[in-house]
C-alpha cells in the first residue's frame, strides 16, 4: 500500500498537530456560538470553520493527501458537486418565512 511506508516514516507528530488544530477549531466554533452576531453570520462563520476541520480530517486523518492525486480529485469533485447541488433550495426556505401567504408553517 502506498500509504503504509508514509505512515511509518511520518511518526505521530503530524497526527498530534492535526489533532490539536482540530480541537482548536472546534473551540473556535464554540466561541462563535457566544458572539453577539446575527444567525446568518454565525452560520457562515461556523460552516467555514467546519469545512476547514473536514478538510484537515480528510487530508491527514483519512490520508487522502497521501493517495494518488487523481483519487483526491475524484473524491473532491464528486462530493463538492453534489453538495453544491443540494444548496438550490435556500432561497425557497427564505421565501417560506418572508413571502406571505405561504409563510410560517407550524
Amino acid at each position, binding site marked *: 500500500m502506498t500509504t503504509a511506508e508514509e505512515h511509518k516514516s511520518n511518526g*505521530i507528530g503530524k497526527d498530534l498537530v492535526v489533532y490539536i488544530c482540530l*480541537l482548536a477549531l472546534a473551540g473556535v466554533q464554540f466561541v462563535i*456560538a457566544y458572539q453577539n452576531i446575527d*444567525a446568518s453570520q454565525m452560520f457562515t462563520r461556523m460552516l467555514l470553520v467546519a469545512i476547514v476541520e473536514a478538510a484537515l480530517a480528510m487530508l491527514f486523518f483519512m490520508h487522502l493527501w497521501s493517495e494518488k492525486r487523481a483519487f483526491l480529485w475524484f473524491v473532491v469533485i464528486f462530493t463538492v458537486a453534489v453538495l453544491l447541488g443540494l444548496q438550490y433550495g435556500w432561497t425557497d426556505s427564505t421565501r417560506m418565512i418572508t413571502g406571505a401567504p405561504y409563510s410560517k408553517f*407550524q
Partner: protein
Amino acid sequence: MSQADLTMEGHSAGLTVGPAFSIPTKKLAMWLFIIADTMTFAACLVAYGFLRNGTANWPRPFHSITNVALMTFILLTSSLTMLIGLRSARAGDKAAAFRWTMITAALGIVFALLHIREWLELIDQGMTLFKNPWGTGLFGASFFSITGLHLTHVTCGVIALLVVGVRYKGGRYKADDIEVLGLYWHFVDLVWMFVVPLVYLLNLTH
C-alpha cells in the same frame, strides 16, 4: 492463437489490470461508501437548515455547551487513538494495535452514552418527535433524526472496532483492515463537526 483467444485474453487483461486509482479494493469500497454516506448526511443537514431557516418559532433549547463540548472532545480524541492503533498495526505491534483499537471503541461507547443521556434529558423536558415545549414540533423530528443517524453510525463503528480488533489480534485480519475501519471512524468524526454547529450551537439560548 485464434482471434477469439486473443480477444478473450485482451478482456481478461483489461479486467485484471489492477484496482482503480491503485487503491486496494476494500479501501476503495469504503471510500465509495463514505462518499455516498456524505450525501445522506448532507441531505439531512440541508433539509434541517431549510426548515430552520423557513420556520419562525424555531426552538433554542440548549442552555449549556458542556455536554456537547465533552462529546466533541471524546470523538476527536478517539480519532487520534484510532490513528495510533493503525500506526502500531503498520509497525507490526499487534498488542498495541489491539489495545488502541479497544480504547477507540471505549471512547465511542462513552460518546454514545453521553448522547443517550442528553436524549433522555430532552425527552424528560417533554420533547418528542412531533412536539416540544419551546416551539415548532419540527425541531424534535429533525434533531432526533440527524443525531440518531449519527448515533447509529457511532454504534455500528463501535461494533466494527470490537470485531475487527479481536479478529486482528487473532490473526484473521491485517493492518489494512484496521486502516479501512479507521476511514469510517474518521468519517463519523467529520460528520460530527457539522452536526455540532448546525444542530447544537445555532440553537443555544444566550
